[in-house]
Each structure stands twice: as C-alpha cells, then as structure tokens.
C-alpha cells in the first residue's frame, strides 16, 4: 500500500462515521444531533465572540500552570534527586501525595483559597507538578557517578557541568513528564471551570449541558478535542526535536 492510499484509508473511517451520523441523525435530537448542527452552533458562538474568549482563558491557565510546574518540578526533582539520602526520606510522602488523584484537589482548594482567579493556576500547576517532579527525580538519580566524576577530573566549570552533564541527562525526562502533565493540566483546568464556574471552555460545556443545548455541547467537545490533538502533536514535535539534538542520551 502506498502512502497516499494509506492516508485516504485512515481519513475514511472518521469521515464515513461523521457522514453516517449526518445522514441518519435528527437535527432536533436532544441527545445526539448531527455534525452540521455542531458547526452552526460553533459559528454562532464564534460570531458572539464567546468561544474564542473561553478557549483563550482555558489555554492561558494550562500554559501558565505548565510553565510554573515545569520550572518548580524540574528544580525540586533535580535538588531531591541529587541527594540520595534526601530522596529516600521523602519517597513515601511523595508516593502518597502522587496517588491522590489531582482532580480531587479542586474541591479542597476551593475551600481553602475560594473560587477566585488564583484557583485555576494553583490547582492546575499542582496537578502538573507531579509527573515532572518524579520524572526529573528519577533521571537525576540515574545519572551515572562516572559522568559526574569525569567532570570533576576534567575540572570543567560549574556552568559547563550543568550544560554538558545535567541538562542533557534531565531534559528528556522533563519532556516525558510534560507529555503526561499537559493533558492532565487540560483535564484539571476544565474541571476547575466546571466546579468553580471560572470562565473557560469547561464552564461553557457545563452550561450548554444544563440548557440541554446538545449542538453546543458537541461543538465544544470538538473544540476541546482539537485542543487535545494540537497539544499532543506539539509535544511529540518537541520530543522529536530534543531527541534529535541529544542522540543517545536519555533512554
């Protein structure tokens, strides 16, 4: 099978399903309206300007929180991982905190800090912190002592040690952590918007469901899906770039 026909075949399934839905779906259906109605609903929301604002609000929370989690998680992971005694002492505590599902922090955080503007960034960065922190911690612990000792022997500067030993060893694990953290951040951001009625796609989705506005629910679901796919592709691209720059290190 050549490449062209493979692309066509992979496109065929989703397109065929959507066409089938369009053909048999009842436009007035309260539960599963056909795709055409999603499009017109999305157009109406775009024309009113609310969809763009909601997507921007959600993305802002996700990007800001991922950035915070990335910086704090990498720093904490590297510091804890570089000292075996410390990382051994904190391991069970981290293990328990990690097994608390991040979405369940949302109600507790609402109690403590209210449902203001800080809530989203706080909870989402906390949720995104764990995958990055634990990945970096493990990568730091796995740096072979010979590598560090070689640096000592060659008497390279601290800056050079960081750039040539620590960053190449840790960076792939940061990216791997991000691949888990960012989808999690999207989930928690949507949940915060739903539970605390903060502006964003999550709140729009929930209010569309409460109004029994099925086309809007599916339009927003598709929007969220597109965000998910886009983020996934971006992260894959980032991972490829890093592994091209650092061949042979990491895995």
């Amino acid at each position, binding site marked *: 099978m050549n490449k062209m026909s493979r692309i066509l075949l992979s496109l065929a*399934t989703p397109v065929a399903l959507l066409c089938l839905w369009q053909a048999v779906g009842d436009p007035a259906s309260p539960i599963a309206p056909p795709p055409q109605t999603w499009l017109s609903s999305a157009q109406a929301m775009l024309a009113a300007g609310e969809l763009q604002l909601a997507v921007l609000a959600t993305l802002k929370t996700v990007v800001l929180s991922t950035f915070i989690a990335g910086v704090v998680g990498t720093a904490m992971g590297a510091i804890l991982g570089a000292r075996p005694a410390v990382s051994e002492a904190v391991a069970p505590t981290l293990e328990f905190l990690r097994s608390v599902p991040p979405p369940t922090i949302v109600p507790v955080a609402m109690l403590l800090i209210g449902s203001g503007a800080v809530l989203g960034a706080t909870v989402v960065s906390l949720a995104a912190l764990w995958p990055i922190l634990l990945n970096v911690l493990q990568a730091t612990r796995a740096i072979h002592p010979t590598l560090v000792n070689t640096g000592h022997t060659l008497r390279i500067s601290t800056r050079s040690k960081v750039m040539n030993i620590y960053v190449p060893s840790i960076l792939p694990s940061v990216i791997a952590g991000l691949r888990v953290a960012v989808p999690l951040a999207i989930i928690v951001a949507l949940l915060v918007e739903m539970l605390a009625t903060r502006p964003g796609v999550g709140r729009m989705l929930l209010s569309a469901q409460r109004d029994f506005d099925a086309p809007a629910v599916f339009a927003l679901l598709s929007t969220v899906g597109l965000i998910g796919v886009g983020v996934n592709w971006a992260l894959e691209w980032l991972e490829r770039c890093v592994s091209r720059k650092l061949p042979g290190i990491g895995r």
Partner: protein
Amino acid sequence: MTGHSRRARQWLLPVALLGAWQLAVMVNDGFNVLPTPTEIGRALTESLIDGRLVADAAHTFAAALASWAICLLIGIPLGMALGTFSTLRTMLSLFIELLRPLPAVALIPPAVLVFGFSWKTEITVTVFASIWPLISSSRAGIEGLHARIFETAATLHLSKWHTLRSVVTPAAFSQILVGARLSFSLCLVVSVVAEMVGNPAGLGWGLVSAQEAMRASETFAYLFAIGVLGVCANFALGFAVRRLLPGLAQAS
C-alpha cells in the same frame, strides 16, 4: 544504613509535616477554614462509623471495577486485532489519534445528555478514558513479537486460532498486563472525577458535597480516603503482577 533507620527516616517527614500543620492551625487563628489533622481524623472516624464513607468507597470501587472489566473485554481484542491486521490499523489510526487526546472531563456533559446523571454516565466516561493504555499495550505486545514466533507456528501447521491462543497470547501477555494495570489506576481516578460532575454518588460526590456544605474536615477526610484507596489499589495490583509474572517485576 540499616533498613530499620531508613524506615524511621521515611516516617519522619510525614509525621513532622502533620505536627507542623497541627501546631500552625492551633497557634494561628487566621486559618479558620483549614482544619487540624486531629479534626480530620475525627471526621474520618465519624464517617467511617456511620457507614457513609464505606458505602461511597464501595460504590466508587465497584464502578471502577465494572469499567475496568469492560475495558479489558473491548480493549484487549481490539488492540490485538490492530496489532495483527495492518489494514485495520491504517483504517483506525487517525480515528484513534483524534479520540485519545480528548480530555475525560469534557466527555461528561455529552454523556449526561445521553444517560442523565446516572451510573451509565460514570461507566461510559470511565471506559472511554481508561481503555487507551490497554489498546496500545495489546497492540504493541503483538507488534513486538519476533517474526520467528509466527514462522515456527506456521512450520508446525498450527491453525490461526491455535496460533493466537497458544503462541501469540502468552507471548504478548506481559505487555498486556502492563496496560491492564495502568488502565485500572485510570479507572479509579476517572470514576471519582465522573462522580464529581456526572453521577451524584460515591467518593467523588461525597468530596464535592462536603465542600459545598463547607464541612472542611470532612472534605479533607474524603480526600485522604481517596488517596488511601489509590495506594491500596496500586499496591494490590503491583502484588498481583509480581505473582503472575515474577520476571516482569525485575524488569520494571
């Protein structure tokens, strides 16, 4: 360092943190919403005694288990089929690529439209969100098999069904098990989330309703219970995997 003192050091941090928390709240009147660990402990024992917490945990665990069973029933055959037939793989690749990154929470509103606020919503959302690791690990389990395995089966003139049952499935088993384990942890988390927004029952709903009633110590008690359930499930699964496949535990 002996194992004994290492164990002691591992307990040091949580105990110190809890002690500092207790003291900070008791000394400072400003933290009027934050309960002390002893208050949380009292709320925990109260809800344990009146049976609410146990009933909620049982609901969540049952929902997660049921969803996991559905994931196993659909995910393993689908993944194995994807690993075996390249045409099917091509046909479904983009479809899966589009559905998989869909955040689980976003699925709750359409599921509520279809099923109402019910256990059906919870199970649908949980299955949808937790099936992906099983599909990809079953697929990878088959794709990773050496061609010689199939050649040997062909040399022995095994039927297709016999090859699948006695050659392919055992060879891919360890990979599938990894996906099954991941899928169960996801099932537990997603059912709690689905209960928070989509199905008013179980631990997720208990957590949200305690928060909405501003019962702080009960909210923390529920959070703690969810954490403990997660740790126990993880431990039990790890134990089961080690029993089933002693070799795998050393590899991972």
